[in-house]
C-alpha cells in the first residue's frame, strides 16, 4: 500500500516538475513580454506543486530523503511523468497545445483529489486547482486564438495537435497503483475522467476550428518509467549541479 501511495504521488509530482522545467526554458524567449510573464508564472506554479508533492512523497517513503533528493537524484527510469509533458517546446503553438491537453486533464484531477482521504493530497489539490484553472483559461484561449487567427497560425497549431495527439491517451492510463489508491480512498473515482476531458477539449477545438486527428496511434510508458529520449537531456541539465557537487548546501 505504501509503495503504491508513493508511486501515485510521484506520478503527479513528476508531471508538474517536468512541465515546469519545459516552460521555464521559454524564459526570455516568449513572443511578447506578457507571455514571458505568463509562462514564467505558470512554470513557477508547477515547480511549487512539484515541491509540495515531492516533499510529501519523501515523507511517505520514510527513508530520510527530501523532495530535492527525489527531484535531483532519481534516474530516467525512475521518473513517472507523462510522455506529453517531456515533449520539446517547439513553437509557441506547440507549447500552448501541450499545456492545454494537460491543463484540461489536470483541472479535473485536482477537482476530484480535493476529497482524497490523504489530507496532504487534498490540501495540495485545493491550492493547485486554483492555479490550474487559470492555466487552463490561458492555454485554451491561446489554442482558440491561434486556431481561429491567421491561415499560418491555424496550420501551425493544427500541426501541433497532430503531433501531440498520440500522447493524449496516456492521460487516462491506469494500473494496479490506481486501483489500490481508489480502494484506499486516496484517489477518488475518475471513471468519467476521459468523458469530462473530451467535453472540454471538443468544445475548445470546435471554437478553434481544429480537427482531432483520425490517427489513433498511441504512445505511453511514462507512468512505468519508459520515457522518450527527451527526458534524459532534461534530467542531465536539471540534475547537473547535484550530480557534479553531491551532498552540499546551496
Amino acid at each position, binding site marked *: 500500500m505504501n509503495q503504491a501511495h508513493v508511486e501515485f504521488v510521484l506520478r503527479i509530482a513528476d508531471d508538474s516538475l517536468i512541465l515546469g*522545467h519545459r516552460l*521555464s*526554458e521559454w*524564459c*526570455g*524567449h*516568449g*513572443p*511578447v*513580454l*506578457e*507571455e*514571458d*510573464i505568463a509562462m*514564467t*508564472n505558470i*512554470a*513557477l506554479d508547477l*515547480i*511549487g506543486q*512539484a*515541491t509540495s508533492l*515531492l516533499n510529501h512523497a519523501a515523507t511517505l517513503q520514510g527513508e530520510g530523503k527530501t*523532495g*530535492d533528493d527525489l*527531484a*535531483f537524484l532519481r534516474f530516467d527510469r525512475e521518473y513517472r511523468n507523462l510522455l506529453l509533458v517531456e515533449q520539446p517546446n517547439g*513553437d*509557441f*503553438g506547440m507549447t500552448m497545445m501541450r499545456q492545454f491537453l494537460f491543463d484540461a486533464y489536470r483541472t479535473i484531477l485536482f477537482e476530484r483529489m480535493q476529497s482524497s482521504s490523504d489530507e496532504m493530497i487534498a490540501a495540495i489539490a485545493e491550492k493547485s486547482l486554483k492555479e490550474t484553472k487559470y492555466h487552463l483559461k490561458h492555454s485554451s484561449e491561446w489554442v*482558440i*486564438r*491561434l486556431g*481561429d*487567427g*491567421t491561415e*499560418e*497560425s491555424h496550420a*501551425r497549431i493544427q500541426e501541433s495537435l497532430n503531433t501531440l495527439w498520440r500522447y493524449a491517451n496516456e492521460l487516462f492510463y491506469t494500473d494496479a497503483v490506481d486501483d489500490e489508491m481508489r480502494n484506499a480512498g486516496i484517489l477518488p473515482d475518475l471513471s468519467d475522467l476521459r468523458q469530462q476531458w473530451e467535453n472540454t477539449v471538443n468544445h475548445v477545438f470546435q471554437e478553434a476550428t481544429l480537427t482531432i486527428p483520425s490517427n489513433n496511434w498511441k504512445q505511453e510508458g511514462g507512468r512505468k518509467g519508459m520515457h522518450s529520449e527527451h527526458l534524459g537531456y532534461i534530467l542531465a*541539465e*536539471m540534475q*547537473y*549541479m*547535484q550530480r557534479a*557537487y553531491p551532498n*552540499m*548546501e*546551496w
Partner: protein
Amino acid sequence: MKEVNITELERMFQEKIDQDIKIEPKDWMPDDYRETLIRQISQHAHSEIVGMLPEGNWITRAPNLRRKAVLLAKVQDEAGHGLYLYSAAETLGADREDTIDDLHSGKAKYSSIFNYPTLTWADMGAIGWLVDGAAIMNQVPICRCSYGPYARAMVRVCKEESFHQRQGFEIMMTLAKGSPEQKAMAQDALNRFWWPALMMFGPSDGESKHTAQSMKWKIKRSTNDELRQQFVDVTVPQAEMIGLTLPDADLSFNEATGHYEYGEINWAEFWEVVKGNGPCNKDRIDTRRKAKEEGQWVREAATAFAQKRAARKSA
C-alpha cells in the same frame, strides 16, 4: 488664446521642478526633457528585458527546488519591471514596439553588465548581490524623479529589487561558508562581476554628458560617482562579512573621509562593451531579435483573432 512664448513655458516648468511638483504626462514639457526621459526609461526597460537572459540561463540548472522557484520569481519580476517601464515610456509618446526595434538595431542601449556571461551557479549570487545592489543605488533616487509615472514605477521596482539583492547575497553567503569548491566558485564570480558592477554607474562625472542637465531637471538626483561611492561603501563590509576578497589591490578605507577608496576602473573596457564589443552583446541582441521574429506569427494571429471577434460582435 493668449500666446505664451516658449521661454515663459520653460521658466514655469523649471519653477515646478524647483518646487518639487511632479510633471505628469499631459503637462507641458521641453522637448529635450521628453527625449531625455524616453531615452533613459526605455534604456532602463531594455536592461530589465535583456537582464532576464543571463539569469534565465541558470533556471533549468538551479541546484535545488527552492533556488529554482526563487530564480524564476526573480526573472518574472524583471519582465514585470520591463512592462511597467515600457508603459511609463508610452506616457511620453514612445511606442513600445518602436523602442524595442531601436534596441534590436543597436540604436538604443541597455546596461552593459548584461553583456557578461553567467558561467557558474555562483553568478546568480553575484548578480543578485552586486548587480541588483547597484541597481537599487541607482534607482532609489529615481523614486524622487520629477516625472511622476517614472517615479511611481520606481517605488515598486525598488521594493522588488531589494528582495533580489538579499537573495543574491544569501546565495553568496551559503557558498562562502560551503565546501572549498563552493567558496572558490563564489570568489571567482565576485572577481568577474565586481568591476563590471562598478561600471554600471556609468562614466565618471567629468565624462558624463547628460548629468548636469538631468540634475537640473531632477531626473537624476545624484551623480554617477556619488552613487558608485555609496555602493562601494555598502558592499565592501558585506564582502568582508562573508569572507570574500574584492579583486582590487588598491582598495582601502580612508579614515578622514569615512569612505573606501578604490582602484582605477578600466574605462577602455567599459566603452568597448557600450559600443557593442562585450563578450555577449551579439548573443543577447540576437536572442531578443530571434524571440521577436519567431513570435511574429503569434502576434499576427492574436490581432487577426481580435478583429474577427470584434467583427462578429458588431455583425
